[in-house]
């Protein structure tokens, strides 16, 4: 294993890149005319606040990342009984631009779309789609086109679904579904901004979430054919109090080999659900308070919106990055000893810049291919009134890259605007290599505005990389969602002493935080680490044995590679 001093020395040698406008906004040509609807510019109701969603995945099976845009609606359409704007699939052209898919991929509008997630629900190798709605959540099976199967999918009720996650919760090789719900909204029951009932900094604004009823999140057991059923009461997943759920990520947070959940809640404590196997069976236990990720370091609940996860400090356990309201700060929870976390936003440089910002889509990814994880966050206030005098914030805000300039043991983040774009009202965002050039690009939705593509203009000399996609023909979870991939690198000692081994870890996940779906793939920026000396895949279906990564693949750096699970 690596030693601290060697790792620090190694990190110091990683390639440094100027980040001046590293991301170029190419939405005008990548997604010409693609916009979303989310009520009116006045934002009279909280329903109009959250905007649409984005889901990245290879729906067409071409090897490129396609994009699903989840669209919303307007109060007028709802009151007229009209469906919301339809979600739509934009097919990758391979160069970071997209074109609307043909009619086989058409999806009808629901009531008011929010977010979504994609995964292989029926084991046919094609990507399927779940769309969350203010209304009934929806399921589309993919292949040569989309087929809506919502009616028989087994999803229960009609709530305000914000985000969704697919995970193999019971390690049976089939993807299960978690829907994160926000609050009980009814135009006839919730006061609008014009009522004057609700104020922020002395000014009338839309009402909620305080004073409204939170809705419970839902978990479903996948049946492997695109339908779902209840897990039964034994699965747990019932918190002490329902919360205003907005974002979700999955991962093996307690390092016990199965998949756990972390859900960010608006104005209520966040939830960490540990997947626990006992004699009585499998269940989810809510431990956020105990682990230290429910509230901030002062014990105050935040407005948890977006969330990302990844191993920032190289200790083998995932950390969390949560975006919050203006006047709060974004929270970086770093894993510590004994499965607990500490909020270290200030010490790592995350807090100060984020204090006046209101964050949504967020994540951890190696955006400069230097082998450590950076942070990104998209911003925009919930109230247009933020532009009025004396608020210390603004409605339109800059989106930020927080580049990791520290060491593995002591990560430190330097914030800078993601692109040269003027401040905007951003919402959901997803990360993936849209143009196949090995650096990670971003796609984001403006509230009631365009879908943006931010192309990473990282120079090829910045650092090498290696991409991994998994294929598992032994079970329905064909993309290996929940698998962990580790790559080992030999690190020379700076003082001529004995070298060490540095291990980089990634998990295959498809839940992209707030109203976003991410592609089922692992991206490793390599910096100056060179060729991995070994690699392992820990498949998600319960057995803890690792599959060695073939040596030929390890040498295939600078490319996306596929690893197939051996048949049993």
């Amino acid at each position: 294993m690596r030693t601290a001093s060697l790792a620090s020395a190694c990190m110091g040698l990683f390639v440094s890149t100027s980040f001046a406008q590293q991301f170029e906004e190419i939405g005008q040509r990548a997604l010409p005319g693609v916009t979303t609807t989310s009520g009116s510019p006045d934002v009279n109701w909280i329903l109009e606040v959250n905007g649409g969603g984005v889901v990245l995945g290879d729906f067409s099976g071409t090897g490129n990342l396609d994009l699903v845009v989840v669209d919303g609606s307007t109060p007028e359409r709802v009151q007229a009984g009209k469906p919301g704007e339809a979600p739509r699939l934009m097919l990758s052209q391979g160069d970071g631009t997209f074109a609307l898919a043909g009619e086989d991929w058409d999806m009808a509008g629901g009531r008011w779309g929010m977010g979504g997630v994609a995964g292989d629900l029926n084991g046919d190798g094609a990507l399927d789609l779940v769309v969350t709605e203010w209304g009934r959540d929806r399921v589309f099976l993919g292949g040569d086109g989309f087929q809506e199967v919502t009616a028989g999918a087994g999803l229960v009720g009609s709530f305000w679904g914000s985000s969704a996650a697919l995970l193999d919760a019971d390690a049976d090789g089939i993807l299960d579904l978690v829907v994160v719900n926000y609050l009980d909204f009814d135009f006839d029951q919730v006061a609008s901004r014009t009522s004057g009932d609700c104020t922020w900094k002395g000014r009338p604004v839309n009402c909620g979430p305080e004073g409204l009823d939170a809705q419970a999140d839902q978990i479903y057991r996948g049946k492997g054919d695109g339908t779902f059923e209840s897990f039964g009461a034994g699965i747990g997943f019932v918190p002490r109090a329902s919360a205003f759920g907005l974002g979700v990520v999955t991962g093996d947070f307690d390092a016990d080999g199965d998949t756990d959940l972390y859900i960010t809640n608006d104005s209520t404590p966040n939830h960490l659900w540990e997947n626990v196997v006992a004699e009585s069976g499998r269940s989810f236990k809510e431990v956020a308070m105990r682990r230290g990720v429910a509230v901030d370091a002062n014990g105050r609940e935040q407005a948890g919106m977006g969330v990302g996860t990844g191993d920032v400090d190289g200790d083998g356990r995932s950390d969390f990055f949560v975006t919050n309201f203006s006047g709060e700060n974004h929270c970086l929870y770093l894993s510590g000893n004994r499965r607990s976390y500490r909020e270290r936003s200030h010490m790592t440089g995350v807090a100060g810049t984020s204090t006046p910002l209101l964050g949504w889509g967020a994540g951890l990814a190696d955006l400069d291919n230097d082998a450590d994880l950076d942070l990104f966050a998209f911003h925009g206030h919930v109230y247009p009134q933020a532009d009025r005098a004396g608020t210390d914030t603004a409605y339109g805000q800059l989106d930020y890259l927080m580049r990791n300039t520290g060491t593995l043991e002591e990560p430190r983040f330097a914030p800078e605007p993601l692109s040269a774009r003027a401040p905007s009202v951003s919402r959901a965002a997803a990360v993936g290599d849209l143009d196949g050039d090995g650096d990670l690009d971003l796609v984001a939705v403006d509230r009631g505005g365009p879908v943006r593509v931010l192309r990473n203009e990282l120079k090829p000399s910045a650092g090498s990389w290696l991409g991994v996609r998994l294929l598992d023909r032994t079970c329905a979870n064909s993309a290996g969602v929940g698998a962990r991939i580790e790559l080992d690198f030999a690190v020379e000692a700076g003082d001529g002493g004995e070298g060490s081994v540095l291990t980089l870890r990634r998990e295959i996940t498809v839940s992209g935080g707030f109203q976003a779906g991410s592609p089922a793939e692992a991206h490793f920026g390599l910096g100056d680490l060179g060729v991995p000396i070994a690699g392992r895949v820990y498949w998600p279906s319960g057995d803890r044995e690792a599959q060695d990564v073939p040596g030929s693949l390890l040498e295939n750096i600078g490319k996306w590679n596929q690893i197939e699970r051996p048949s049993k």
Partner: protein
Amino acid sequence: MSTVHLMGRQKVSLRIGGSPTLWLGLLGWALVLAGQTAAAQEPTDGAVEPKAPALSLPAANNLDRLGLDDVARAQGGAWSNFFVENQPNPEIMATVPAPIAGLASQAQASYSQADFPACLAQSREVLRMLPDFPPSLLVYGTAAFRLRRYGDCRIALDRFREVAPSEVWRTQVLGHALYSLGEFEAARDHYLAVMESAPDPRAVSLGARRGLALASYRMGKTADALLGLNGVVLLAPGDAEAHAWIAQVHFDLEQLDDALSAARKAMQLAPYEPRAYFLAYRALFEMADLAQTDEAAQAFESEAQRLQAKWVALSAAASEINTLHNRLLFHVGDPALLRALANQHKALGDIPSLIQTLESLIDTSDSSDPTTLTRRIFAMDSLRAVGADDQADALKAATTELFPGVEGLPE
């Protein structure tokens, strides 16, 4: 029992962030303007020439017109002689036209009544008529901070620093504003400037000392933070918030015993503040995980759960109380909000806070107001409910005096 009296004017504590120990001792000198209505005189050298008084007070509820962005600045050096040996120059003060001085006095009164929007509106008008008038810049900046308009606070106090560079030591609230904006390095630098420019080390408030420690902490300088916080509790052993921050720093450093010890001290000093309970239960859970024996682990676990439950209850109440305080900033003296706030404090058993709230609620002696009596009856009921019978009796006596013959007051 509390020393707060129920029959006086509302006592406005200049607290920051709810801390009873972070007093802003910077207004006293500025308030010397109160009551001065000297006739306009020729300005002395260095003072600005006042414009003809033509007051056009913006409505305090027009929150868009309270900023200073469009308020003109004084010419360079205009107030260079305003302070003499750290005191306002009476000769210059005497040149202030009476209407402007009167308005400045009103601003102070508004501040004292916690009517910060009105205070801003009045101070702004003073500054419009008498650009960069140092006392009003200070009053404005402090009121803006209380109203959580940190950017406006910064504008006012940056201007004050420019026109009265020798008086930087009076502007610790600017450090608080910078800290609240997330500009920790600037906050630290400002606190240092405040401390270094104080004419006497004793003039450096605990607020500035603690602010410097916290800004250091936010910058990751935990050793500096601990040094500063320990300095604060040496000067003020009863500073619960400083003890809680010490607990926080130790917890971050994974020094669980020290964290727990400091948290217990903070809990003892401020039993209704949730934060120390939070730190204590987190430390105890981790101690349970580390314990050598099952018995020890169980003991830590049990106490952790007890304190966690306490924290949950206090935290929920604090959230409600914070919401009410936020609304009261813009609905000054609203009786419904004050009653709700009193009920929160009553439910907690927090008698000092209850009394303070009730003082605001009954802050009228207008016997012709039909609500005066009902407010007092509510206050008496509340006081008796928490066992504050002395205060209830005093209020009853005063009420009987104000309403001769009234019967049925709560016993």
